[in-house]
């Protein structure tokens, strides 16, 4: 008997001519939380998909409880007790909670008729045993991300999974939800479930993981005990070099007020938001997911105009009713969801970058192709976008590179006020550092930056001042010097005594 429930030996996988996994080995012990760490493109997702039968390895073997197995489709892996919760959640939005749990294996009577009563009672039993309270008949569409994950976990355990794979489960959760999730993870571990855990947030590994395996460029690097390894060492293993300064914030003397917001409200969404943002300053906006930070940004940018309150740009009172007007005033907004709002995935890098400023490259209505391409090339080079050429289609880029293209696009408008919404969500450590360095440089050039971030280290590391929101209200404002993790968490989770129509 080996010590592993699941063992991968020398797994290789090629897509077309590109080898994305080269001889990766990996061992999972029963009752451990094993973190899988690596930059974007390191091969974590591919490895997971090999384990769950979505991809078949070109070389190498998989052993499950010492038995050589070969999964030709996801169903076989599921039946063997391997369950996965993917980054992109795999629920059917139009089906209800109970049905999603038993999707594809609804209990049936002898005649093959779906036994709805049993389905609901089993679902109820499962959720109760996981300590989750959910309306069984609620459509998945109407659940929060944390609730959707609970449904997925329940689904995994309805199959008696003894191996649970969680691919970035915390990236969209609030702090409380993360805490609840970790509690569940610890409980499952104590019951003997082996868990593979993927996250870009190193702090989380130290909190829940027992061991960590690092991948880099599709190769196995090392496996360590989490308690014996330092954060810096993990970063070094991941990127293969030392990143000296994770938050390269330069000290900039703030200039005049670039943006002033007074008692800004949007009925039912956020209330009474006031702040100032000076040239050269980075103002961090912290809070839980859903606190209304993005809504404030969208209001300022004219996507959803506010119902009350005033906005001043460079001391001038303005009424911004459309993004075009905001752009003309020197604002730029880099949205949170790159795929949804920031990029046109089917267009080339060039077209994406020059989209907001096309008219600058047009004479009498005709685009000057050469000038446009040259401008895009320079912008992409400045941002260190990694691509085959600037004609490459944006969809085919990695997450970090997409984010760079989005940044390049907005910087091409030469904004004076830059709003960044979760600028580094889901991108790897190396790219993250590059984005942070760029932010710092932009601030040094006198651009005023409003940065929305749910990652506390980022907020603390990059901001000159920090503003905290909770349920649509401002609940705290701190300078860089006085801000601490505890103060921000307190402000982000406090309840408002005065109350409101929420």
């Amino acid at each position, binding site marked *: 008997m080996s010590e592993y429930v699941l063992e991968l030996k020398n797994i290789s996988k090629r897509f077309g001519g590109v080898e994305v996994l080269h001889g990766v080995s990996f061992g999972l012990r029963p009752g451990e939380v094993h973190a899988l760490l690596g930059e974007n493109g390191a091969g974590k997702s591919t490895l997971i998909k090999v384990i769950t039968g979505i991809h078949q390895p070109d070389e190498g073997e998989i052993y499950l409880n010492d038995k050589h197995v070969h999964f030709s489709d996801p169903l076989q892996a599921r039946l063997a007790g391997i369950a996965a919760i993917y980054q992109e959640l795999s629920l059917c939005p139009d089906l209800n909670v109970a049905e999603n749990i038993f999707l594809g294996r609804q209990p049936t009577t002898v005649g093959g008729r779906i036994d709805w009563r049993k389905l609901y009672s089993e679902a109820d039993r499962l959720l109760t045993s996981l300590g989750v309270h959910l309306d069984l008949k609620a459509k998945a569409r109407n659940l929060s991300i944390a609730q959707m994950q609970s449904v997925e976990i329940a689904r995994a355990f309805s199959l008696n999974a003894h191996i649970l794979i969680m691919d970035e489960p915390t990236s969209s959760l609030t702090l409380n939800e993360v805490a609840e999730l970790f509690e569940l993870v610890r409980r499952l571990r104590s019951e003997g479930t082996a868990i593979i855990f993927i996250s870009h947030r190193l702090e989380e590994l130290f909190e829940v993981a027992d061991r960590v395996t690092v991948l880099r460029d599709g190769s196995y690097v090392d496996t360590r005990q989490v308690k014996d390894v330092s954060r810096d060492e993990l970063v070094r293993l991941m990127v293969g070099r030392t990143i000296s300064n994770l938050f390269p914030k330069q000290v900039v003397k703030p200039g005049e007020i670039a943006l002033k917001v007074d008692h800004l409200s949007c009925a039912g*969404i956020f209330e009474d938001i006031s702040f100032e943002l000076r040239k050269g300053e980075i103002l961090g906006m912290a809070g839980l997911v859903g606190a209304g930070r993005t809504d404030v940004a969208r209001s300022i940018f004219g996507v959803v105009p506010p119902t009350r309150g005033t906005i001043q740009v460079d001391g001038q009172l303005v009424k911004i009713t459309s993004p075009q007007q905001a752009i003309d005033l020197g604002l730029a907004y880099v949205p949170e969801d790159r795929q949804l709002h920031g990029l046109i995935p089917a267009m080339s890098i060039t077209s994406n970058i020059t989209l907001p400023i096309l008219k600058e490259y047009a004479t009498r209505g005709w685009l000057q192709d050469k000038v446009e391409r040259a401008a895009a090339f320079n912008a992409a080079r400045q941002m260190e976008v990694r691509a085959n050429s600037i004609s490459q289609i944006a969809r085919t880029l990695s997450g970090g590179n997409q984010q760079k293209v989005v940044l390049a696009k907005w910087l091409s408008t030469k904004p004076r006020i830059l709003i960044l919404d979760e600028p580094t969500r889901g991108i790897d450590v190396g790219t993250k550092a590059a984005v942070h360095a760029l932010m710092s440089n932009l601030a040094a050039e006198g651009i005023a930056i409003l940065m929305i971030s749910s990652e506390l280290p980022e907020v603390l590391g990059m901001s000159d001042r920090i503003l905290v929101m909770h349920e649509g209200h401002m609940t705290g404002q701190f300078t860089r010097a006085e801000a601490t993790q505890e103060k921000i968490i307190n402000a982000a989770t406090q309840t408002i005594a005065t109350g409101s129509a929420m």
Partner: protein
Amino acid sequence: MTVKNLTDTRSNLFRNLTRFREFGIIIFILILAVIVSLRAPVFFTLGNFRDILLDISILVIVALAQTMVILTHGIDLSVGSSISLVAMMVTYTIKTYPNTSLVVIVLLGMALGAVLGAFNGLIIAVGKVPPIIATLGTLSIYRGMVFLYSQGYWISPYQLPEAFKMLAKGTPLGIPNIIIFAIVVAILVYYFLNYTRTGRDIYAVGSNPDAAQYVGIRKQQIIFLVYVLTGVAVGLAGVLWASRFESAETSTALGFELQTVAASIVGGVSISGGVGTVPGVLLGALALGMINNAVTLVRISPFWEQAAQGLLILVAVVSDILITRRVQRNKAK
């Protein structure tokens, strides 16, 4: 716990809205009924109600099949041409062999339809061609085959035996057979969609194809299946069409595909897949049938009929979009 309370209010709200979706069409039907009966009292008679049901029976059969296709985020535009081809082929068979039993005729029609549907299914599920393109192609191909097969001739009532004509309009059970056929199909589809795994898989594939695949549902098989099932329903519809109208022409069921799509959408089936119920589609077909009937009764120019149906479709689709948006906004809060 606050989180739980939030879910409760959200789901209640959503339940109310979905209920509203079918309420909306019921209210429309009631208002239409009241208005029309004020102008033409004959509207509220059993005889007229029977006429409406007769008129929509074939529509119900094909619209329910179309619904299964739309649930997978597909569409089948070839159903009108398929009906015509099946009608033409079975009536030629009857003309040639007048003694063929009706059971064999019905089965033959369904088998022919299944073949036509399977061809659609192959192009879409295996060839990965978008359904709207694939069935736009077969719409023309199947219609062309009608011309080739019939050489442009049509089958007239006198060429068909009485027994075949009675298949649709006979009333051994007190109401016309064709209505019975529609009711049986509706019950079968209802049971299939709600009480079998394959039926639920159809919703899953339409709602989130990747999720369906992750849990081991064989997506391509499900997609192939819905086109074959549609073919079977279309086959039955082709036989009934020939029987009810006692003829088969090259222009039989021309444009009928749009009516089936309309009945589904008016009945609350979401064009983006995953949402839709059998009762909803029945109401959708009823609403279309009533407009049709009302135009005749109130003696409005028939030119208005299509415009009225079109308006209803737009209202249905726009309200669908508004509801979705509302739900999303509530969710965003």
